[in-house]
């Protein structure tokens, strides 16, 4: 594995391998006074974020630091990007400075692919070798989020294969949903997308999942449910009449949670908009896996860095 750009690049064995590594890393650090592994000593990891983020950026930074990599954070605000530097020039600059891994978040779908392409071309001529990790590109993919969701589901349900997982809400603008559908299907789960027709992307019928518009009808048969954030910042039109109407139709209220099988985990990629897609009482209930997702995120990202950077260069 040289880059992690899309979960479509992972087959079941590769994905399971990453999840197993994440479990082992979690186990290795459990109860330790010194949460530091020497594995990536001397490796440099740069996070390049063109969009705001709390958990993903911090999670990658912690993951790198716990494995002794040097981590550096670059955000579009406060860098040469605000002087008009292109994505290509910025990313090639970072590679040339010796970044072994660039973790990129960008509002344009496909940005990580482009950077990986430039990195591979430069590798041929300059001998630098830079791995690229997609930390979210537009409405396309967010592979490490899908991996940490799968890790959390595996932890809570024992296995992912054969389970029925509902993904609810703003699928149209959600890279999390796309990555999750692909990864969960690869791992053998049955995925149901539940959303109003206006918030489903064109071509969703070709995804490896079932589509429904009736949340209440689906809840009793789900093993777990994943609520998506309503991405107001990407909405420039009337996708639904009002926030209140959305919450009534597709928000996970306490009454709706009662329709789920007992102890069925509720996931949310964060940041949560309480009262919109998820009721505060549900978000704080024992079934809520939100904080477990965040915890697992660090170990999953350690696993990704381990697989990309620890072994011999390909």
């Amino acid at each position, binding site marked *: 594995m040289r880059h992690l750009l899309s979960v479509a690049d992972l087959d079941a064995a590769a994905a399971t391998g990453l999840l197993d590594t994440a479990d082992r*890393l979690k*186990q290795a650090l459990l109860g330790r006074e010194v949460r530091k*592994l*020497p594995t990536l000593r001397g490796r440099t990891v740069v996070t390049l974020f063109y969009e705001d983020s709390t958990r993903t950026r911090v999670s990658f930074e912690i993951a790198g630091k716990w494995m002794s990599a040097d981590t550096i954070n670059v955000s579009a605000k406060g860098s040469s990007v605000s002087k008009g530097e292109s994505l290509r020039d910025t990313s090639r600059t970072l590679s040339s400075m010796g970044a072994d891994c660039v973790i990129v978040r960008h509002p344009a779908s496909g940005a990580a692919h482009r950077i990986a392409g430039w990195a591979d071309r430069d590798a041929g001529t300059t001998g630098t070798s830079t791995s690229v990790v997609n930390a979210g590109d537009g409405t396309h993919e967010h592979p490490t989020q899908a991996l940490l969701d799968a890790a959390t589901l595996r932890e809570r349900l024992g296995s992912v294969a054969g389970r029925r997982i509902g993904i609810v809400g703003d699928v149209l603008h959600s890279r999390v949903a796309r990555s999750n559908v692909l990864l969960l299907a690869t791992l053998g789960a049955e995925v149901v997308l539940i959303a109003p027709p206006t918030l489903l992307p064109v071509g969703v019928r070709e995804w490896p999942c079932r589509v429904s518009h009736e949340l209440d009808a689906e809840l009793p048969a789900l093993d777990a449910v994943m609520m998506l954030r309503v991405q107001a910042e990407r909405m420039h039109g009337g996708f639904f009449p009002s926030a209140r109407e959305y919450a009534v139709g597709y928000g996970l209220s306490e009454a709706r949670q009662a329709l789920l099988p007992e102890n069925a985990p509720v996931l949310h990629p964060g940041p949560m908009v309480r009262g919109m897609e998820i009721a505060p009482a549900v978000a704080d209930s024992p079934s809520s896996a939100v904080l477990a997702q965040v915890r697992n995120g660090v170990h999953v990202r350690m696993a990704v860095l*381990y697989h990309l950077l620890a072994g011999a260069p390909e």
Partner: protein
Amino acid sequence: MATARRGDAEGAQPPVRELLSAADVTRTIARIAHQIIEKTAFGPANAEDLVLLGIPTRGAILARRLAAAITEFSGAAPAVGSVDATLYRDDLRRRPARALEDTAVPEGGVDDKLVVLVDDVLMSGRTTRAALDALRDEGRPRAVQLAVLVDRGHRELPIRADYVGKNVPTARAEAIHVLLAEHDGRDAVQIARAPGEERPVVGDTEFTEGADPA
């Protein structure tokens, strides 16, 4: 597992030879258990003091068997667990990223305990060094000792075992295979001649050829 290799021109030796039978393995583990009890003066009075940590995969199995034997002979049960040294290896960059194994440090931790590291084969000593480094991040044992089923020589670091099941002089090109019922279906220790093989693979313990064998 070693596949049978073509016999060489002399045909004098079979390519895979058994060094220890199943009964020998059992006897050897029992002997090491007795030695550990004697050397550490282990018994019900200081049962809390001893921690056996196996290096996966087969070292972890051996640690569990040793713990069972020690319990049987001394009447006190030592703590037993495993410590994966992969993340501390010095040869990670030499091959594709490898899968990690179980790390399970017993509840009481290792602080101020006598830790006996257990592995199947001792060769270069690099795995032991990695395990020592891993152990340092787990805590501060009172002392650390090393028990191995087979010592085959070719040390590349100043490391020696406190308990050795069997010393086996080997050539670098030869491979030692430790088979344990829990993992391989039966117990045995075998030696395989591996002509032309540059990197002998020994049980689960993989070794890097020393940069210069001088």
